């Protein structure tokens, strides 16, 4: 039904040329520039629709849009929604790669819509909702299973009594900080969770983001949950489920390696277990007593 070619005016907004006037009132009847305006290249955007209770039929609808320089997938979605299909559902917030809300699948791979430019994506761009999430409608997915797992991994700081009394001093060059540093920038966009094939296979698996968060906290000297959290996340449905496929690491837009964090958790669990076992031999008691 949406196969007809309708060109969006909003495509021009992303150009930033003086004529576009993104923040000005629309100027009526400017005949000369319109005549001079050259034909911009167009792309066909295929968007997966449906999936909601009121619209259960899953299908792909195509829209043709004019592109401009530096135009992003998010610009294209806004252009489609404002000029061609007002009922199109997708989610975004900051538009500058800070919030991670606009994550979706671009040509089969998860990415942020706001930081993915149309250039190099081809003449036909396929947009789908993130894998491994329940679809609310069109491109918008339900993030609640993802955050429930973050909660299961206890993804918050439980301060020790010392940390509650005074600010902790953790030197930038310290071993602790160096361990945590590469894993701390996660903005919970869900791209790693969508790219992980193990999440697709085992719905109880905590997933890369929750385990990455747990790793930062397990290594944090201000945190009081240490061993308790480690035991919580190093289970069959936790760190040990990871098969080192590196899909999460390859797809993370922030350059984080959740696989590295999971391997760190595994190392910590093994060394902790070996130490406890060795100590138990010397004490003559079973581990954990």
């Amino acid at each position: 039904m949406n196969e007809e070619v309708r060109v969006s005016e909003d495509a021009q907004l992303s150009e930033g040329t003086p004529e576009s006037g993104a923040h000005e009132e629309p100027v009526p009847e400017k005949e000369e520039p319109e005549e001079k305006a050259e034909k911009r290249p167009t792309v066909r955007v295929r968007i997966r629709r449906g999936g909601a209770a009121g619209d259960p039929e899953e299908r792909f609808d195509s829209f043709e849009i004019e592109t401009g320089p530096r135009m992003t997938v998010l610009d294209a979605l806004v252009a489609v929604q404002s000029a061609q299909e007002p009922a199109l559902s997708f989610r975004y917030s900051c538009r500058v790669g800070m919030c991670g809300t606009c994550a979706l699948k671009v040509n089969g791979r998860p990415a942020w819509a706001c930081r993915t430019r149309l250039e190099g994506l081809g003449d036909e761009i396929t947009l789908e909702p993130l894998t491994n999430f329940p679809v609310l409608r069109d491109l918008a997915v339900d993030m609640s299973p993802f955050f429930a797992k973050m909660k299961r991994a206890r993804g918050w700081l439980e301060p020790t009594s010392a940390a509650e009394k005074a600010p902790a001093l953790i030197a930038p060059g310290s071993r602790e900080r160096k361990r945590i540093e590469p894993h701390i920038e996660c903005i919970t966009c869900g791209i790693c969770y969508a790219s992980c094939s193990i999440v697709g296979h085992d719905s109880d698996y905590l997933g890369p983001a929750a385990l990455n968060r747990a790793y930062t906290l397990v290594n944090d000297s201000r945190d009081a949950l240490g061993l308790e959290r480690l035991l919580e996340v190093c289970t069959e449905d936790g760190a040990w489920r990871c098969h080192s496929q590196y899909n999460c690491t390859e797809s993370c837009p922030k350059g984080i390696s959740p696989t590295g964090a999971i391997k760190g958790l595994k190392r910590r669990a093994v060394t902790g277990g070996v130490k406890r076992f060795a100590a138990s031999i010397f004490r003559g008691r079973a581990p954990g007593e």
Partner: protein
Amino acid sequence: MTSVKEPPATNKPPVWKISAWRSMYPGMWSWVLQRLSALALIVLFPIHVMNPYIDSVRITMLLLVVWHAMHGIKVILTDFGFPDRHQRKLFWVLCVLGIAAFFWLAYMHTEYWRFMA
């Protein structure tokens, strides 16, 4: 029998659809091929034990063992702290080393059998 409440339908392409495989990265291929090589070895090993003189089985097994081992080494190295930012390079380096090892071992193997004959 009581009915269990269905969880919300998760967006998951079925494995037989190409779209499910399009987002695969080298690390994933490494894992998939290692698993497939393991399955093939399970089938080939009994054949090899029953009749160790089938050349095609021997060479295929050599190839599969080398492939399986190379990616096993990759997992072991990364488990013991090999930097993750170089894991893709490690994959390709091990692929090249694996191919070289295969040809070298195949050559040694042929020479050995020629000597024995």
